């Protein structure tokens, strides 16, 4: 005989009326947001990796002198405080052909200059004395294609040189600690290197850190979607159970309905991601905006996300109904409080102890271990949260004097997991805020913002170069004081290296002009500025700052969306009771006040707690990673929490008109 489950599910879903449809639309909407955000996170992580992969050719892939066909010297110069990667290439005489670098159709001939589209635009925009004069004079520039670029905004030049040119000489290679990742020279036979450049190499790891912190709020959102309309579904299915439906049929019906709604929503989210790809590609991160194709996750990932979100919603809905299957009367009458056990506290303390021990004196941990610890900490808090809500409900319940507070407290201890789901987004976002505010690395090194430095071979050369520098700077119209540095001058831009420093006055365009003028000294290297010296630190700080801001904003948005959805779902699920209470004269303000307190009470306690925990976790991580902490992040933390709390309250308050509407008429049909 054909199973009645599917047709019956379809019939009941259709017969659920306008309110049922509202719940299903809300659930589908949450599924759409969840799948969109998951795809966005995967796209950012994969895209960051993909674009780092397009920079590996710039790091010379050293081969032996016998195998070498060319010499490659990659370096970096700065204009308007932004990096320009310059790849100097020279064919070695009497050797075989060298393949074309990515983005070029052939190996550049001596005197040819290829530039990225963004650099071409900047060359056109800025006076030659500020940028173009740093490169060989050509009648026209060739263009580097997307295959050789990480971002459409990247500034890259490839210059064909003579083998004896100073720009590809040994002097053009790495000489100091600050050259690491910015300047490197080697004999090569191709461009098959695997080391990403310094500007994109850390991007994927930083994005993954944000993804770990964001996954849980997004999962919460999807789970909240699965629970939308839970009470309505519970009542309906409990009645069916009482009428003789088997537990398997009940669960199958729930799974079919939730999966249908979830799949529809998740697919909508995936379609939105596809439609918005061009717009998403315009969001700058690291080296700039994205090539659209690199944010495309591919069909397998797309399908995996749709299936995952659908599965999450289905599992969430089915888990909610386990009690219907086992105890129909219990759920039909809401008999059993969904209490929590002290084992949650014990597990949480155990995990904290483990993290403390692991990060205490065991030396530096690998990034993957740190991420695993972070995930473990997150999971532990997920177990701990409902227990705290339960205890909080009991404590407040004993002391409550006002009806709204009493109602809220009883609701907290009646179903602490449901309340936890409502507030968990913001509570965990508080953890994220605490984590990033404290963990943001803070390097307070000396600043030499107005200086341009030129390295020389020795002290005598430095004195000669200083004379030349004064001349070329004067000719370029740059007002500067030129000094000679020695090995004893550690507190200078050159950090204890023989050379010349020009103290330029007049702002950034004067510094750029000074760099360009001093390039003419032909030392084989570009003169450099503060940006070059502090590049590796600045890049890490900038990436962490960007990811932390994005993570915070998304966390709070997701948290507010979860809270708003859950609040709306609760109103719809409890509308009969709310309606009858209001008919009996209970003021709307009391009902609304109870709803707000139900969120505010656990938020006030837990958000504070998790923020402290986040700070604790970050301090432990910093300790393990051997870095310093940023104590000035406290203000940012307070602002983040205040804004997040307001957003969440606004989201809950957003369902007030719904509460008013469902309680304004007689609850029972007037006959």
């Amino acid at each position, binding site marked *: 005989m054909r199973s009645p489950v599917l047709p019956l599910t379809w019939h009941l879903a259709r017969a659920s009326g306008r309110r049922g449809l509202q719940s299903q639309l809300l659930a589908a909407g949450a599924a759409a947001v969840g799948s969109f955000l998951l795809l966005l996170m995967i796209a950012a992580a994969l895209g960051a990796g993909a674009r780092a992969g397009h920079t590996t050719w710039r790091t010379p892939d050293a081969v032996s002198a016998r195998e070498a066909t060319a010499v490659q010297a990659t370096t970096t110069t700065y204009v308007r405080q932004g990096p320009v990667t310059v790849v100097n290439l020279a064919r070695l005489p009497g050797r075989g052909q060298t393949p074309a670098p990515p983005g070029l159709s052939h190996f550049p001939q001596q005197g040819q200059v290829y530039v990225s589209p963004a650099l071409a635009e900047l060359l056109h925009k800025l006076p030659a004395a500020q940028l173009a004069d740093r490169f060989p004079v050509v009648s026209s520039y060739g263009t580097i294609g997307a295959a050789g670029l990480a971002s459409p905004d990247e500034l890259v030049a490839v210059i064909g040189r003579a083998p004896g040119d100073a720009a590809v000489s040994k002097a053009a290679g790495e000489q100091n600690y600050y050259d690491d990742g910015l300047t490197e020279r080697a004999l090569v036979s191709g461009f098959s290197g695997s080391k990403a450049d310094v500007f994109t190499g850390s991007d994927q790891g930083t994005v993954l850190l944000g993804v770990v912190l964001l996954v849980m709020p997004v999962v919460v959102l999807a789970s909240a979607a699965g629970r939308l309309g839970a009470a309505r579904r519970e009542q309906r299915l409990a009645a069916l159970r009482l009428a003789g439906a088997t537990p398997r049929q009940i669960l199958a019906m729930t799974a079919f309905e939730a999966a249908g709604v979830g799949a529809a929503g998740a697919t909508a989210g995936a379609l939105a991601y596809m439609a918005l790809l061009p717009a998403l590609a315009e969001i700058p991160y690291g080296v700039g905006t994205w090539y659209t194709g690199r944010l495309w996750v591919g069909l397998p990932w797309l399908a995996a996300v749709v299936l995952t979100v659908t599965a999450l919603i289905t599992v969430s809905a089915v888990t909610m109904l386990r009690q219907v299957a086992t105890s129909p009367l*219990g759920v039909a*009458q*809401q008999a059993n409080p969904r209490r929590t056990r002290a084992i949650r506290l014990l597990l949480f303390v155990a995990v904290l102890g483990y993290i403390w021990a692991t990060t205490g004196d065991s030396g530096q941990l690998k990034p993957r271990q740190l991420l695993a610890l972070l995930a473990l900490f997150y999971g532990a808090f997920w177990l701990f949260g409902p227990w705290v809500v339960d205890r909080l409900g009991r404590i407040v319940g004993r002391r409550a004097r*006002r009806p709204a507070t009493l109602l809220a407290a009883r609701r907290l201890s009646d179903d602490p997991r449901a309340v936890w789901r409502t507030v968990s987004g913001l509570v965990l976002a508080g953890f994220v805020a605490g984590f990033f505010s404290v963990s943001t690395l803070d390097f307070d090194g000396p600043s030499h913002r107005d200086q341009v430095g030129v390295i020389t071979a020795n002290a005598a050369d430095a004195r000669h170069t200083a004379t030349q520098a004064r001349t070329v700077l004067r000719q370029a119209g740059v007002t500067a004081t030129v000094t000679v540095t020695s090995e004893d001058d550690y507190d200078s831009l050159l950090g204890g290296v023989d050379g010349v420093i020009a103290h330029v006055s007049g702002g950034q365009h004067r510094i750029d002009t000074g760099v360009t003028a001093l390039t003419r000294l032909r030392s084989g290297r570009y003169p450099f500025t503060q940006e070059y010296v502090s590049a590796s630190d600045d890049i890490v700080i900038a990436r962490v700052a960007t990811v932390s801001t994005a993570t915070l904003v998304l966390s709070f948005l997701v948290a507010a969306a979860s809270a708003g959805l859950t609040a709306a779902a609760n109103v719809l699920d409890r509308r009969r009771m709310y309606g009858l209470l209001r008919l*009996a*004269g209970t003021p709307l303000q009391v009902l609304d006040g109870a709803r707000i307190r139900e969120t505010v009470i656990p938020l006030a306690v837990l958000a504070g707690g998790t923020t402290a925990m986040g700070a604790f976790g970050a301090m432990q991580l910093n300790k393990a990673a051997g870095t310093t902490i940023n104590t000035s992040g406290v203000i940012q933390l307070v602002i983040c929490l205040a804004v997040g709390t307001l957003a969440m309250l606004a989201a809950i308050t957003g369902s007030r008109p719904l509460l008013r509407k469902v309680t304004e008429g007689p609850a029972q049909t007037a*006959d």
Partner: protein
Amino acid sequence: MSTVLAGSGLVKKYGSTTALAGVDVEVHERDSLAIMGPSGSGKSTLLHTLAGIVRPDDGQVLLRGERIDNLGENKLSALRRKRFGFVFQFGQLLPELPAEENVALPLMLEGMPRREAVARARRWFTPLGLDGLELRRPGQLSGGQAQRVAIARALAGEPDVVFADEPTGALDQRTSTEVVQLLTFATRETGAALVMVTHDADVAAHCDRILQVRDGRISGHSQYTVA
């Protein structure tokens, strides 16, 4: 006996359907009035109109001589809370609150301190046969017990009138009889009047008077001897 509640010339229309077509009704102190009629006759609309839940299109509702049908929503809401009690078919108890707090809630809403409100609520448990159930939640009570808690809640605020809308609709015959006996007895003891909508003649027979409603009009009026 003086008149507590009176409706005169009550008219209520829902679109083209006339739910009440000029109904006159009076409820006296300690009076219990059952409103009966077939589905769609207008009996629930009459109860809701008398209770200030539905505003009549025409006619007046007077509570102890004062007109209430023209009051604003906030005043009506306060009036329902202070002067009326309600018992519905099911679902009016808050599932999270234990029985005693469900009963105490209207008192707390009126500003009574919680301790006093709960103590006063507990007084109702013995007369209504709810001893030992004070801390049980609605889901842990039988249907009859839950209705008795609802009755206690309706009476806890010492209202002028208790409105009951199919209070036994979800109960079996035996429990229905127990619940309606308690309802009529308890309201009379407190001096409140009772207005009850029911489709069950046996339940209605426990009231002093029965009002038959058909097509929005009073079609019959029976009076029993008050015990």
